[in-house]
């Protein structure tokens, strides 16, 4: 009798919990698409993943960024960003923090522009497809942001980014901004890195 009771409890819990999960955790019905799909590339190389990051940004598709970024993602800011945003917990910047940043940023009504040559500047170095499931780039990127009031800001930085092969796909796993770089439209001034955006929208 006691064994039957235990078995009943066990079965009840093991069956009910997943069932409850299935019932309570249904997604909403999406609207049928009215536009073409964002043409993401297969995640079969670091170059494709970097391009997918650009496509996710310029299309404000947080799902695209989520797919491109590793679950073990780490971001390290440059010195100027650390000084400007001392209240941000940079040492614990991980994938969930990165997705909070992306969600807040995309929800702020901005328009993001960066073409392929800006996102991977020709002055970038070592932008190869890696070896042994690992690639490390020394990249210079540029972004132009326009908010809902028409105010525009630009960001250009030099960063060390790393890609790793996890499971069967490549992911962006590490991003360390090193320094802000020259403004292409005003060569006498230096622009901030994307660390300024992460500091603003990351919490």
């Amino acid at each position, binding site marked *: 009798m006691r064994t039957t009771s235990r078995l009943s409890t066990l079965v009840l819990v093991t069956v009910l919990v997943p069932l409850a999960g299935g019932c309570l955790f249904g997604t909403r019905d999406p609207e049928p698409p009215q536009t*073409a799909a964002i043409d993401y590339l297969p995640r079969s190389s670091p170059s494709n993943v970097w391009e997918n990051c650009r496509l996710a940004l310029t299309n404000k*598709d947080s799902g695209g960024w989520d797919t491109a970024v590793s679950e073990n993602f780490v971001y390290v800011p440059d010195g100027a960003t650390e000084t400007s945003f001392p209240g941000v917990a940079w040492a614990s910047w991980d994938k969930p923090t990165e997705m909070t940043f992306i969600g807040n940023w995309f929800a702020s009504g901005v328009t993001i522009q960066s073409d392929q040559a800006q996102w991977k500047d020709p002055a970038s170095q*070592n932008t190869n497809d*890696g070896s042994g499931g690992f690639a490390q780039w020394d990249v210079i990127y540029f972004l132009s942001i326009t908010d809902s009031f028409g105010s525009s800001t630009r960001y250009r930085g030099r960063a060390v980014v790393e890609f790793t092969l996890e499971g069967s796909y490549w992911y962006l796993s590490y991003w360390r901004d090193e320094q802000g*770089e020259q403004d292409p439209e005003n060569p006498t001034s230096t622009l901030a890195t994307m660390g300024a955006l992460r500091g603003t929208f990351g919490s």
Partner: protein
Amino acid sequence: MRWRRPEIWLLMGLLLASPAASPAQEATPPDSTTAAPSDTTAAEQSYLDALEARLRAKRAQEAAAGGGEAAPGGLFHDCVNAPEAGVKANVTRVNYFGNLANKVQVAGGGSLTDTYGYSYDSYRRQDRTVENRNANATYLSGEGQDPYGLLPVILRLEASTNWSEDVTVNTAGSRNTKRSQTRRAGVSATRSRLVTGPLIQNLTAGWYYNNITGVNLGEASEQTDTETTGAVRTGIPFARGLALATRLYGSRRIGDNALAGFDSPTKTTGDTLGIGGYYNRGGATGKLVVSQVNFDRTYLDYRRDANGLIDTTDVPDGAEKIVRELEERDAWQLNWDNKVALGRFNFESKLAHTYEKQQYNQSLVGAKERSSDTASLTLAFPVGNDSLSVTYKYEWTWDDQRFLNATASRGRQYLKKREVAFGWVRHLFRHTDLKGRYRTELSQDIAQNRFNENDRDRLTEEASLELESHLSPRFYASLEGSYLRKDDIAIRSTLSANNNVKRSYEVSPQYTWTISDKVSLQQTFRMYIQYQDYLYDALESVRKEDTFNKRGNVATKVTYDPNDRIEIIVKHDLNRKNNGTRAATDLAGRESYRRDSNQSINRIEFGFTYDLTDEVSLQTATFRTEDETERFSGTTSSLTANRSGELWVGAVLDQSFGPRDNPVSFKGRIKRYLAYGPNVTDTSNDYWEADLLLKWAF
């Protein structure tokens, strides 16, 4: 009295001493221009602790030499000096540093501590150097077990200066010098554990002078102010297992602020009020805490856009790029943590609510509100040979914004998360367990009144089953199977074309076999396949094709310890990976995929450690990797092969020399790296990694 139980005093002590509950931290505004110089860092604290340890050892020596009685004499006694110097180098930077600390005891139980530090960083990958200098002097009127020997309060007199200079030259050759200096001096008085009837109180009051100057991107800034703070923390252990604690904190800073040629008075006021009930009674433990923080600040700032980003290029005609900003912030928080043990059942809950409102007078950000409700409930209980746990988590946050001069709010941006997890462990038979886990999480982004197109649902569902067995003391084996599903659903038609579901299946057996006292073998096999299915791939406009990826992996590790001084490790890792795209579906609904690429990665590693003496150890390691990828396009294919490798040799040293009772310590780890391959650059193909520290206390 019943409430004088040890656990109550312990509880009160923890409550009152808890750094997390410090109101000073809560009221500190998140901005460098008003933030006080940083408190003692972990490294500095460790250094000061070592100094304290040396002082205690010195007293013990003197006590032993004097027949058990330490006899301090004069106004100053028991002086300890602790110099240290070192180098840390890695592929990114080289850091040189030196510190000097001395501490002297003062008659009446007080102490005087001076610290001086210098560091210089040279970056290997960048044209960048960073130099830091700091000095600090602190007088404490009392410390240790009886800190009130001289005065009824602990008096702390403090003066410090920190200087830093960061010179960076960017890729275009443009040089930026970022320089800052912080000077701070002041006094504080603290009375701890003041018992008045049933009340236990901590009282603190302080006054400081601050001066912060800086230059960045050619713009100078300066802030000079005086800071007055006061805090009262009170504990009331009013019944057995029940205690109440309150805290009240207030601060005020008044001074002058200069930024980019503009001057203005600056003022910051902040206060925190908190009250908490703590219980440990009848099988239940927990706390219920409410706190409120208010903060107003007037300061000079750069003009900012609606998102809070500095925007000095879109300045309206006639306006300045610098504004006199007034920032106001109000926040409150409620936390209830509870644990209950009822027979075999253990229940744990954590509930929290936070609300924050922030408003700017000049920034186009305007006013922002943020609210968060979270709950976490866990129930764990045994059923016969099984142990079960069920967890439910809930999070509902929203934020809203009313831009400056706007007549209505933007609309709330919601984030709703729900998660349920189920854990199961069953002891099957001797040394063998079966573990199961199921988890599902739904995360939803919702924009009120559709103020953006970013509505999105993400559903994650995962399950795993693991059989593990310690078949003998020398043999461990496990077998795990897992399933993961991720649905990524954009709700709005502008983004829904990419909606997709990813499903992953994995089987992973592994074993560890200790063949003898000298040799052990570990092998892990992993087979993995993932499918990505697009929900609207049937629509011609979508043009997305379903894909699959599969990967097999064998990792082998052999460890050989021929004697106590030598360890040899050999590892081999073999990966094979195939990518494909769905090519067709036949009349019976069977799907066929075409292969897009094959990849094979081979990696072999060798590590060797030889303990030359108890103080010196020699180490070396190397790896070689071969990566071959074959890509198919129609009837043609291309093959690329990459090879990479690395070798490092190094040593670890832990040596003391000089007087036996007061030795000079040298600890070091140094490695020389040589590497080749596509990831290797001029700065990483041949470099030294070092961590050297020489220290002494006398």
